[in-house]
């Protein structure tokens, strides 16, 4: 019985997080929503594995717990690379302001 309540709470939270992912407004909000849904998935898997009387399937929850943050680290790396390129472009423009202004 208590499982029902927990499952409903987790599902509703997944829905709320998805709403945040759809609204945005920044891309970081979407990443945040992805993280939230990731941890909610782990919880749901753990609870449902007991609910379905197959606790030997907890390996799935363990998989997500171990590797779900790789995506977020890739996001950080993506923005680090982009910021590096932006700084390099700004430096180039600073060194030769005339050609920088004409460049497309």
């Amino acid at each position, binding site marked *: 019985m208590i499982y029902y309540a*927990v499952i*409903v709470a987790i599902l509703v*939270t997944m829905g709320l997080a998805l709403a*945040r992912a759809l609204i945005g407004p920044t891309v*970081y909000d979407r990443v*945040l929503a992805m993280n939230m849904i990731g941890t909610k998935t782990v919880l749901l898997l753990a609870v449902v594995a007991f609910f379905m009387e197959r606790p030997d399937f*907890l390996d799935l929850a363990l998989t997500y*717990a171990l590797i779900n943050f790789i995506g*977020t680290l890739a996001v950080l790396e993506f923005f680090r690379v982009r*910021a590096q390129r932006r700084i390099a472009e700004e430096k180039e423009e600073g060194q030769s302001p005339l050609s920088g202004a004409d460049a497309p």
Partner: protein
Amino acid sequence: MIVDAVSWVLLTLGGFSVLIGGIGALRMPDLYTRMHAASVTDSLGTMLVLAGVILQAGFTLAAVKLAATLIFLLFTSPTAANALASAALMAGINPGLATPWRQEPRS
């Protein structure tokens, strides 16, 4: 019997904090406060729910796996939050009330 009762209390509190955090992540005004709300579901809710399920499992292999899941989640989800906050700060997303500030990327 007592174990069951404790586990029910933990699961109820866990479900409650998961829900509260979800509402906060939707309602808070800017990214950083939303991250704060999300951390309620990611850490507190996770701990309570998984502790409740561990009590239900008793001394079995499943309990060990659940404990491992909990420990790894407590490592990874704050790390992911930290990485996300670093990325947002680097891109110049400012907290709603703060003065504009931008962190330079570390090469």
